[in-house]
């Protein structure tokens, strides 16, 4: 946990310096030629006073695409599967089997499958769609500034924090529901011995810290990838960004896996009996 915090700390330093540099550049009036790096998603419009950012718009596109695919796919589901159905079934069965092994409970695995799968699919598609041409490069005019029309959804802390909150709530609520409130609370507030008390407090902190580690891990990876590609494009616009983009495609997949798998592991941790109750 401390490692993650240290990482996040150095990450903050790096990121805070970037928008400053950018702001200086903008002040110098080199907006069009500079590297367009903004830490936060930019507003591209508003609806009844509700701000609409480029990341939010991209998120809507991702959600719409996934739901559209599901609607189309649902009609073609048959007992004798086609290639696409066979592939999707293989993915689902693989994930479900893995979850059953991890949670050591098939019923529980089936219950959590939709959540884990949705996190995976959502993060994966959100990350990979961001590499489509046009995302980040099509600019529109808003309040006198030209801002990118679309932005990678996970390059906005609002989205990653929302996912982290969902993940966090599911983990904690599952712990309470499966173990019962007092048993679950006993994991963190434990007066049986000073050592157990300290361990419990540390675990409590690390649980809350997951909100930060979850959200900043995904945000940092995606945002850093965007910055790296933007810098590469700024220096050499052709060929050089290709391997970097290929790597970022891979990172996008890995982050989807990491986010969903960590949620799964933490669910498993939260439903495990507290230490001491187990026969060691």
């Amino acid at each position, binding site marked *: 946990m401390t490692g993650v915090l240290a990482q996040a700390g150095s990450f903050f330093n790096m990121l805070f310096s970037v928008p400053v540099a950018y702001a200086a550049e903008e002040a110098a009036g080199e907006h069009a030629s500079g590297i367009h790096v903004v830490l936060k*998603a930019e507003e591209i419009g508003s609806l009844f006073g509700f*701000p609409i950012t480029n990341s939010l718009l991209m998120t809507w596109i991702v*959600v719409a695409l996934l739901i559209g695919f599901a609607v189309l796919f649902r009609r073609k*589901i048959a007992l004798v599967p086609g290639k696409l159905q066979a592939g999707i079934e293989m993915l689902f069965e693989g994930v479900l089997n893995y979850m059953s092994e991890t949670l050591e409970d098939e019923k529980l695995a089936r219950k959590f499958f939709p959540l884990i799968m949705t996190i995976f699919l959502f993060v994966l598609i959100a990350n990979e769609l961001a590499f489509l041409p046009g995302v980040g490069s099509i600019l529109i005019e808003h309040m006198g500034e030209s801002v990118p029309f679309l932005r990678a959804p996970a390059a906005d*802390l609002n989205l990653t924090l929302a996912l982290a909150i969902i993940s966090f709530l599911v983990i904690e609520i599952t712990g309470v529901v499966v173990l019962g409130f007092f048993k679950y609370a006993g994991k963190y507030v434990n007066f049986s011995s000073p050592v157990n008390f300290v361990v419990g407090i540390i675990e409590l902190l690390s649980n809350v810290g997951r909100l930060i580690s979850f959200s900043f891990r995904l945000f940092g990876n995606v945002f850093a990838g965007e910055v790296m590609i933007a810098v590469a494009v700024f220096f050499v616009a052709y060929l050089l960004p290709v391997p970097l983009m290929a790597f970022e495609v891979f990172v996008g997949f890995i982050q989807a896996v990491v986010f969903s798998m960590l949620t799964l592991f933490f669910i498993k941790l939260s439903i495990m009996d507290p230490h001491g109750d187990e026969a060691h």
Partner: protein
Amino acid sequence: MEQLFDAFGIDGKLLIAQLINFGVLFVALTWLLYKPVMKTLDERREKIAKGVEDAELATAKLEGADEEVSRRVQGAETEAEGIVASARDAANTEKARIMKEADARAAQIAVDADLRAKEAAAQALKESEKEVARLAVLAAEKVLRKS
């Protein structure tokens, strides 16, 4: 904290919007994708299990049928052997009876023939005695006439 939120553009409205986005996606995918696919998988698993069970049942039935067939064939063979044996027995008895009858008849015929032959011989002897007597009378007459 305020500064931090501002730097990262964290906005309560956007955060809630993203929570809703994920919620909508979660519900939609659960109903449109996961449930139907899982249902199909379960159905197929059930069907395959049933198929395997049926095949096992059919194999068992076939084995039973084979056993029944061999049992019946064996029964039929035994029965046929019995029939053949009893037929042979009957034939042998019949043969013996016929032979005995034939023997008896042959003996009867032989006896009859003997009897008839004796009768004929006796008759012939009688007739020849008569003839001899008549010839003797004739010969005597001749002799008398000459003298």
